[in-house]
């Protein structure tokens, strides 16, 4: 899945021992496998698994009585969670709401892009390469610079606002910058490549003869799309929507650069509590809540979408 898959299909375009997955010689030498796995797995254990437990532990800490800012005692204060939820449930709901809208928008915008690259440009490697580069290249200009560019594009004195006012889409005193619209627009934009690439990687492997077969059986274009292309591309859609939704729900760059005080997202709250007010237990419990909600949503979604082909 992911950029990864798209990049690697790029790289493996050459005729290296035939295409597609090959039956691999499965070796039973377990020691070899463990030796290869050990360094990376130990690294992930120390710097991913342990930190998650450190985060969970921190989320239950209690303030040391009479101590200075940022000093806490280990404890099991479950109330931290209730207090965090009570204080920040609007941010939590807003984050998932924005992320949902941005994901749907990215799917609507990104699917045709992936379709054109994978199906319409099939057999034209240069065009296909160029379009793929256009999807990946924005990664290399800093995404913060591109978010600032959105700030300029949506600014009060810029041509977009002027044009919309002229056409009457926007009232004369309306603005786009510092609105929820700007935040969702930025989220959609920033995570669009994460939607396009997995869908592309999926459609790229699709056998277009199936669509032709649908046409031979007198199905029209929309019907063959709905009955053949769309169901076959479901694994790509699932991977793309997850890769867009998860980072979007935790993002705070867009909401802090493009939003206002009424559009703060959960990431902003975690950042402020952790780094500014040194309120580690609240920040940690908010992070844990975010992670748990995402894990539950992902499990339900993957089960309903019925794909195990995620990795």
């Amino acid at each position, binding site marked *: *899945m992911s950029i*990864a898959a798209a*990049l*690697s299909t790029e790289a*493996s375009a*050459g005729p*290296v021992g035939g295409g*597609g*997955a*090959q*039956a*691999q010689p*499965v*070796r*039973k030498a*377990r020691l*070899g496998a463990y030796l*290869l*796995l050990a*360094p*990376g797995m130990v690294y992930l254990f120390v710097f*991913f698994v342990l*930190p998650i437990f*450190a*985060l969970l*532990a*921190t989320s239950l800490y209690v303030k040391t009585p009479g101590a200075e800012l940022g000093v806490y005692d280990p404890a099991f204060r479950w109330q931290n969670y209730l207090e965090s939820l009570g204080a920040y449930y609007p941010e939590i709901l807003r984050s998932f709401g924005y992320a949902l809208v941005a994901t749907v928008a990215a799917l609507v915008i990104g699917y*045709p*892009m992936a*379709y054109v690259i994978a199906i319409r440009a099939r057999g034209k490697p*240069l065009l296909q390469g160029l379009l793929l*580069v*256009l999807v990946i290249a*924005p*990664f*290399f*200009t*800093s995404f*913060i*610079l*591109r978010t*600032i*560019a*959105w700030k300029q*594009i949506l600014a009060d*004195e810029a041509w977009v606002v002027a044009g919309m006012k002229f056409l009457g889409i926007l009232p004369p005193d309306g603005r786009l910058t510092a609105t929820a619209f700007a935040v969702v627009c930025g989220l959609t*934009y920033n995570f669009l490549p994460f939607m396009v690439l997995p869908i592309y990687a999926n459609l790229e492997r699709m056998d277009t003869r199936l669509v032709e077969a649908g046409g031979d059986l007198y199905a029209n*274009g929309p019907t063959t799309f709905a009955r053949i292309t769309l169901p076959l591309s479901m694994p790509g859609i699932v991977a793309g929507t*997850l890769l867009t939704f998860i980072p979007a729900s*935790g*993002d*705070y*760059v867009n909401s802090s650069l493009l939003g206002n005080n009424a559009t703060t997202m959960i*990431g902003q709250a975690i*950042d402020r509590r*952790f780094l500014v007010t040194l309120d580690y237990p609240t920040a*940690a419990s908010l992070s844990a809540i*975010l992670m748990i909600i995402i894990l539950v949503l*992902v499990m339900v979604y993957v089960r309903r979408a019925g794909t195990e082909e995620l*990795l």
Partner: protein
Amino acid sequence: MSAPAVVKRRRRFSLSDKIIPVFAGLAFLYLMIPVAYTVAFSFNKAGRRNLVWQGFTLDNWRNPCGAPQVCEAFANSIQVGLLATIVATALGTLIAIALVRYKFRGRTLANLLIFLPMSTPEVVLGAALLAQFLSMAMQPGFVTVVIAHIMFCISFVVVTVKARVASLDPKLEEAAADLYASPWSAFWRVTFPLLVPGILAAALLAFSLSFDDFIITNFNSGSSFTTFPKFVYVSANRGIPPQANVIGSAMFFAALLLVVVVQLVGAARRKKLARG
């Protein structure tokens, strides 16, 4: 002249034939407009507040280090990116080979450990690592940022290289064994060279993820260590100097050039192979 073997199907007129490319074209435009803005404003005759167009100049490109801290932050990002890329690519490649080529107990657990960091939001990864560093009484700075970047790059390297390993024909290694190559030399002389494109793609991906990361870096860099994205974010309130746009644009063009060269080399090699 013989009759054509395949009768070309008469294309029925379909509205979607025209609408989809037009819509996709607009989407590509949407994707490129902010990039175009970033590049355009690198030529802006502006001081610290580079938000409104003031006129064309090449000064920013002539003197990309003209604004304080820009180049220092950029150099930091390159250093972190290179270190993180080298370590993450090495660790990730080993894992990928093990996952495809071996059957072993704990496979599901290993896959889960690769998948979870990719499906955890950056704020959570950043906050968790900082909680860990705090409990270890480790000062945030260069080292903690490199540690964090290696961590989130490994999974993406594994997924990229895994796809490449899975596409290799195992008969090649068997052939090497038939020619009395030891497993060790069969790997280095046959398998590894075929893996190189996948490993390079993974390294490029890891570097771009590391270079562009802001949220995890912000949590684990402390107050004194600054990377390029952090510099841009922190100076957003006071105004971003146009030199930052110069660096962003230069990275964009460098990446574009690199990908185009790789594509052309690949195309040339394919042509050569096809000619036999």
